[in-house]
């Protein structure tokens, strides 16, 4: 089987992946690795966890290939949406893919930079608060905020990915923003409440 070159679009590469062409899968990984990785960093606490989530997202893509949706000819939206689920259930996913993950070398022991790499934002306490509040949201809220706000995908694209109408995407986004604001309000009240006790 002939592999496509790096100029092939996602749809062409994916059709070759489904036909059993490994190198096409490698090219998709090269193309989308960094975006999936940086997206995952928002959802987990350490660099290594985000790398593991990225690995599991691509393995999920291969395992669930019949369910992968290309939006506007690109696989990235599906990968990002899957990253939300994998990060949330990563213990279960890690069990499933343990043998594969064992083939990826563990990093050398080093000082824990987990907090400093969180999207480059964690150095600011306010950003850390936002990130903690974001992590407290349920999976659906994280998913819609990540796709619409952080990744700036359009409502029709997200709707196509999630199988819902664009209007429902906007409504879900509005509710998620409201819950994020509520969680942030509660976070900011936590300290004073603690002091009064």
């Amino acid at each position, binding site marked *: 089987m002939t592999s496509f070159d790096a100029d092939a679009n996602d749809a062409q590469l994916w059709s070759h992946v489904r*036909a*059993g062409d490994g190198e096409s899968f490698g090219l998709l990984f090269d193309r989308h690795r960094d975006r999936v990785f940086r997206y995952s960093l928002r959802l987990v606490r350490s660099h290594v966890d985000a790398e593991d989530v990225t690995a599991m997202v691509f393995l999920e893509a291969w395992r669930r290939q019949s369910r992968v949706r290309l939006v506007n000819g690109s696989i990235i939206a599906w990968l990002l949406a899957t990253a939300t689920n994998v990060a949330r259930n990563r213990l279960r996913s890690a069990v499933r893919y343990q043998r594969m993950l064992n083939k990826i070398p563990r990093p050398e022991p080093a000082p824990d930079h987990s907090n400093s790499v969180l999207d480059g934002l964690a150095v600011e306490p306010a950003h850390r608060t936002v990130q903690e509040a974001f992590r407290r949201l349920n999976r659906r809220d994280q998913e819609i905020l990540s796709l619409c706000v952080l990744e700036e995908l359009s409502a029709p694209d997200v709707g196509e990915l999630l199988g819902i109408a664009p209007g429902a995407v906007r409504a879900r986004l509005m509710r998620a923003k409201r819950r994020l604001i509520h969680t942030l309000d509660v976070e900011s009240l936590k300290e004073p409440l603690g002091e009064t006790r």
Partner: protein
Amino acid sequence: MNTDDENPPVFDESRSAALRVVLVDVAEIGTEQNRRFRVVQRAWTIVPASLLILGLSAGTFFAVQNVTDKNSVACFARAELDWRGSFPGTTAVSLVGTRDGTDGGSAPIADAIGFCSDLWAQHSLDASYPNGTPPGPGYNDRTFSHPVPSPLTECVMKNGTAAVIPGDPDVCGKLGLASKSQ
């Protein structure tokens, strides 16, 4: 919140290279990894299908049940239950207070829905948190005015305790639980 930093975090190159090899190997038809992965994939399809059939049978068999253990109640924040029996919310007991402050032990809970409604009103349950409970006592509503979802339905857990779940009466069957016998 996009990552346009001057030094964005990067995927470790040696781990990335190893992962790429694994992915290419898994996807390439005819390789050992590919064959193994397909076998595992079939197993993951067959096992859940078998569990589903067993679950459906069990659901039919235990469709209606009595609450046999009234020492605790499972108060669900959302209608979710995994195969290990974990759910978002809390398992609560009613403790008996004594005048001298010693532990009076637990008391049977006759009205499970009323008991969980009190927890909702105190904001001890909240569907917006992943585990179904606010992170600490600082969030509690001492005025008992936090909204209580309606309706709440009483089901029966496999261990015979009551489970109070937001949703219509058919929520019990959807989670594979028995409804409480009238």
